[in-house]
């Protein structure tokens, strides 16, 4: 009897441990976005609209660019036999300018709604890497994923606030088109077949965003006068906010400077 009571205690402890493991916060269930819930506002008046422009820079030495090992798939290894694939975690241009940074209006446009673009953004798997490495699009805007490689990929976005999915795409397969219903900056995308393949999809509620190129420059045009929070997001260094006030026909210049961690 004493022994049996020990077994009961042990079984209860095991059950409690399992229960404790299940406490991770789950992504909320997917709901259709409701842009109509935001009050409709008058179109932006081009006569008074202003802009915010600037650059994103890294203040300090960039991390050493890692060479990615692609030899687990002979096709990918052959593609990069002479020029190894390089990590795009931090892509630095001239004078420390940063590429692949999403710059967007985070706050200040809550009382406006914007139509969802119908043209799709394309993310291409080519040379066993995602091109581009970072894409941005609006909530519910279609994104098309294309496989230009002669090997099989799987596309696996791992969002925190959107529905996740995982689809395979063989050589020559039809493009995959999907969309994301909630704002999220940014959704990591990975290929579980090729562990080095990573991309990010930034999903935004308004059309005021850009992904920087190697010159680190951005220019958010046609902004109605108002107070805004402008955010720059970089996959390694995270987010940085700046507040700006745009007057009628005013062009503001702001720069974002990330420090190496």
């Amino acid at each position, binding site marked *: 009897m004493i022994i049996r009571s020990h077994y009961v205690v*042990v*079984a209860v402890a095991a059950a409690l441990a*399992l229960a404790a*493991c299940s406490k991770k916060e789950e992504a909320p269930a997917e709901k259709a976005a409701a842009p109509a819930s935001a009050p409709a506002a008058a179109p932006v008046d081009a006569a008074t609209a202003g802009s915010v422009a600037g650059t994103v820079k890294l203040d300090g030495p960039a991390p050493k660019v890692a060479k990615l090992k692609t030899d687990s798939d002979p096709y990918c290894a052959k593609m990069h036999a002479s020029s190894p694939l390089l990590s795009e975690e931090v892509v630095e241009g001239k004078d420390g300018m940063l590429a692949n940074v999403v710059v967007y209006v985070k706050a200040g446009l809550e009382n406006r709604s914007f139509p969802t673009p119908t043209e799709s953004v394309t993310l291409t798997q080519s040379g066993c890497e995602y091109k581009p490495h970072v894409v941005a699009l609006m909530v519910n805007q279609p994104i098309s994923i294309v496989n230009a490689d002669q090997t099989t990929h799987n596309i696996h976005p791992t969002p925190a606030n959107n529905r996740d999915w995982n689809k395979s795409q063989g050589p020559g397969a039809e493009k995959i088109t999907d969309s994301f219903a909630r704002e999220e900056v940014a959704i990591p995308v990975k290929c579980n077949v090729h*562990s080095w393949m990573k991309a990010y999809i930034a999903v935004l509620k308004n059309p005021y965003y850009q992904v920087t190129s190697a010159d680190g420059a951005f220019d958010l045009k046609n902004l109605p006068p108002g107070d805004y929070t402008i955010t720059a997001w970089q996959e390694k260094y995270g987010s940085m906010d700046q507040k700006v006030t745009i007057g009628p026909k005013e062009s503001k210049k702001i720069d974002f400077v990330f420090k190496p961690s």
Partner: protein
Amino acid sequence: MTSLHNPGVHRYALFTVACTVLLLVAGALVTSNDAGLAVPDWPTSYGTFFPPMVGGIFYEHGHRMVATFVGLVTIGLAVILWRSESRPWMRRLGLVALGAVIAQGLLGGLTVKLRLPPEVSIAHAALAQAFFCITVAVAVFTGRWWQQDVPAIEDAGRPRLRALSAWLVGVTFVQLVLGAGYRHNALVIAPHLVGAAAVLALVILAGRVVRQRFAGQLELRRLAKGLNAVVGSQILLGGAAWWSRLATREAPQPQPVMIWLTVAHTVVGAIVLATVVVFALVCHRMLTAAQEPAVVSGVSHTGAAV
């Protein structure tokens, strides 16, 4: 007890244990290579049974192939036990093993279909350990030692070694679940560290009890020493696996050093559990509780020194 030992059945049971170790390695490689979703469909892989074995597909589909093989081996084990065993509970144990491997296969499918929710992944990891223990238990029960007459030894001390060994099984299992929780990003590392300390403390206590009360029992002494060795190795491997994560965190993931140390830590964890299960079974077989009033630390319940 009359000996019922059948060497052929015992060898087959050992073969099942060895295949299950291989399956544990294959499964751990899937998680460490982040290849769990390299094959998005189930039960087929990319609609076939033989997809191109490249990148993560090699690990995920390889795991499925080894799992299928272990499933077939387990069917064989259940059939052999059913036909050759005179002990009804052993026949049932064969069916339990078969049920566990089928449930494990379905859980594996669920991890793919539901895209690796931590609860399902942890349950898959925990059932893997439980199935491994069942195969180890079958190997013990079909062995010569278990089926020969073993004189009963009275355990008059406290804590009772049988109870202590049962606690050790439970705490080690919980510790493996906590480790799976950390591995599947559902928990932080702290509970796993606390669990390691608890297992270590129980192993040290069990070793001390064996030395003090059962110094003449070769089986118990050997098992206690083995337990110390595997738990010590496991703690070192855990430290090394943790170091490898920290040391390579800036490098593209996953790095081979992290993969192999983590896989080794996972598989040796299963071996620790198997060892404590064998220890508990041997304690159960050899030891009986004393009939007289219990004695605590050399002092009887009446308070008189003994």
